[in-house]
């Protein structure tokens, strides 16, 4: 019943631009280039560390140290990556870590022992995420403002709870988790948690409908909406997820430092955003990788480690950190423009 369609007169018009080489290979290759370049930076840092401080740097204990120090901010960065991929931002992560860590280490909470501390840290984190999510998704607030408000309130509440005092943890099972005796096959429990969160984060972002929706909402919220995705609910879940990561990170920080303090998590938001950005996550949303973000965290932690081992002072460390962020973003823009 359909009349034969005459072939398009100019068949070249329908050809895919740059069909040679196949575009999918280009995509794969580009993704690899990004990861490889980060691995290259890490390798260069390891080389520098190995040359300047061979005994102290190339040492199992140092590897354990670097990974442990990366764990807390690493878990936060995994959550942050999801939020940024969705086109949002969460400025409140540091404050949520602070609030969760002090709420979980009050005298009253500590009476409930290990479970009480873990539960409180996670629930406070998720609760703050819930507030962020509701304000942003259903209150139509700009993420920057909503989470900035959360930053201020959570820090204030943390201060109110502690009265500026350091809350020392006296629950032995919590403290023991941060000790050398708790290492399994040489792996600190904190690092295991970090690894598990990373793997789960990677799977969720790359292999689940949740991850797909996150990318869709970040890449083009209008298209996502018209494709039938519940954009608002997805946003709510994303800030919940970030809050959950903050709660877990707060627990790790309690284990690591043996205390809760309202100054905890100072400037985590900037560290996590910076790590995600140098890891290749677009601040405008729609693209990002957990692998890149974790490599970003490891790069920053390794720099700190190398600088400390070489006894360089904090001013130099800060300058280097800034320079690396700029360099990483410039390199990425270059790779993007040569697409």
């Amino acid at each position, binding site marked *: 019943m359909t009349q034969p369609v005459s072939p398009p007169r100019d068949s070249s018009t329908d050809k895919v631009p740059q069909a040679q080489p196949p575009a999918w290979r280009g995509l794969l290759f580009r993704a690899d280039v990004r990861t490889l370049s980060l691995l290259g930076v890490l390798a260069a840092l390891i080389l520098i560390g190995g040359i300047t401080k061979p005994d102290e740097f190339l040492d199992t204990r140092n590897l354990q140290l670097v990974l442990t120090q990366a764990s807390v901010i690493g878990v936060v960065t995994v959550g942050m990556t999801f939020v940024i991929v969705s086109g949002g931002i969460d400025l409140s992560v540091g404050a949520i870590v602070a609030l969760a860590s002090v709420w979980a280490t009050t005298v009253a909470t500590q009476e409930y022992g290990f479970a009480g501390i873990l539960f409180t840290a996670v629930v406070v984190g998720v609760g703050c995420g819930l507030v962020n999510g509701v304000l942003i998704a259903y209150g139509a607030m700009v993420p920057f403002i909503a989470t900035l408000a959360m930053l201020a309130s959570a820090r204030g509440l943390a201060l109110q709870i502690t009265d500026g005092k350091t809350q020392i943890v006296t629950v032995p099972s919590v403290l023991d988790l941060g000790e050398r005796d708790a290492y399994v096959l040489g792996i600190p429990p904190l690092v295991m948690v970090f690894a598990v969160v990373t793997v789960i984060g990677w799977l969720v972002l790359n292999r689940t409908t949740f991850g797909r929706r996150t990318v869709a909402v970040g890449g083009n919220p209008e*298209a996502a909406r018209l494709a039938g995705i519940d954009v608002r609910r997805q946003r709510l879940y994303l800030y919940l997820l970030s809050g959950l990561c903050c709660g877990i990170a707060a627990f790790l920080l309690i284990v690591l430092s043996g205390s809760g303090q309202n100054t905890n998590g100072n400037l985590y938001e900037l560290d996590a955003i910076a790590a995600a950005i140098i890891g290749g996550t677009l601040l405008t949303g729609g693209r990002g990788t957990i692998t890149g973000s974790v490599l970003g965290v490891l790069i920053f932690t390794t720099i700190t480690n190398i600088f400390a081992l070489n006894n360089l002072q904090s001013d130099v460390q800060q300058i280097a950190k800034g320079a690396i962020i700029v360099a990483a973003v410039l390199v990425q823009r270059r790779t993007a423009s040569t697409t």
Partner: protein
Amino acid sequence: MAPEPPLLSMSGTTKSFPGVRALDGVDLDVLAGEVHCLLGQNGAGKSTLIKVLAGAHQPDTGTIRWRGEDVTLRSPIAAMRLGIATIYQELDLVEHLSVAENVHLGHEPTAAGFVVRGKAAKESTAALLKRLGHAEIDPGRLVGELSAAQQQIVSMARALSHDVRLIVMDEPSAALDPDEVDNLFRIVGDLTAAGVAVVYISHRLEEIRRIGDRVTVLKDGRAVANGLPAKSTPTREVVALMTGRNVEYVFPDRPDSPPAAEPVLKVQGLSRQGEFETLDLDVRPGEIVGLAGLVGSGRSEILETVYGARKPTTGQVLVDGRPLKPGSVRAAVRAGLGLAPEERKAQALLMLESVTRNVSVSSMSRFSRGGWIDRGAELGAARAATRELSLRPDNPSVPVRTLSGGNQQKAVLARWLLRGCKVLLLDEPTRGVDVGARAELYAVIRRLADEGLAVLLVSSEVPEVLGLADRVLVLREGRVVHTAPARELDEHRVLDLVMEGSPAS
């Protein structure tokens, strides 16, 4: 004494965008003191032409002579320095600045080179506004507080604040009431009397008759008529020039008799304040219903409201006899509606993602279990859907941004095909699609209908609606003015209806 050369003379102007030749050797002469009208259907090249004039686009080839001398309009500032001012349809005013500040934006009267003399700016602005017959506008008010008509006056005052010799007006009357239009024409008359040339763009033929001197008609990027007398050229001839096809569209056959099934989509008394009114229509499985109308006739708004992306003021949408929750895209999608929106890149596609992911985004639950995506099944389903539409390249892993316009549209159609939707809403399905690829897209749409899909089609290209649809609803300013089987209509008739709004005979 030699005759004075035209104020502006463009010849052989060509401008291409990726996949589209927007201007193809256009000539245009504008004389000092005349009102030169530009006519053409949407996509004929009018906007590109005025952007070239304004210095916002650089032509690929062609020369521009200004008062007999070759010039290059490198930037909007260069055009402005020569005395060419443009008043765009979307007004480019800064809402948070005052009227005077907007008028003098970029060339503020200053003392010592940098101190803005606010009082002088206000005084000169007040003088300009008075000349435009709008002395009531306070130069100190914020532009955002003014009505659309007043904003247009401010835009015009800004043009006049330069030493202007040519003013380009892009559909200036679209936002105006009748008496405001009269004032506009008085201003145009004053300007031309003072020797200023006006390039006037409008869809309303009666306006062109009233104030135009000469007419240039654009069609598919070419000037099909130059300098016709505006007052004496018959309307039929102008319309014929605008629509005269030099591209043969190849439309698939339609079924001889309309499908007899019960309508799957019913729209009852649907209205949206200020956009369209009490719309009734139904679409049966296997049927393609077309909506024809100009920009501003409410076409896209109707589709988006049916789809739940906009909330109706009154009325309801029924799918298989069940009313949809108003204003809910998710309810519409669940009921079996799918939209291929007009702005494909902004509203449909995830440009950073692969074809697969773009196709699968609306049916993820079909190949996922507990949120876990079976990527093999996903790729298989996407491949099957894209193959059915012969999307090229035959590899759904490529990024969707590398596809041509036609294939991007097929990716959107594949999304709904995979979802298994019952009603397809198509908004300008061939916009940005190469002429050659259109025939194939038409065939695809017809095949989908033959397979039982109900299709509601919107297009500003009348031949497309007439060629593809079974039934056509003609819209004018948010109202259906005529309904008929497509085979009983022709292009001139439809254009008469949409432009003049003459009642159906």
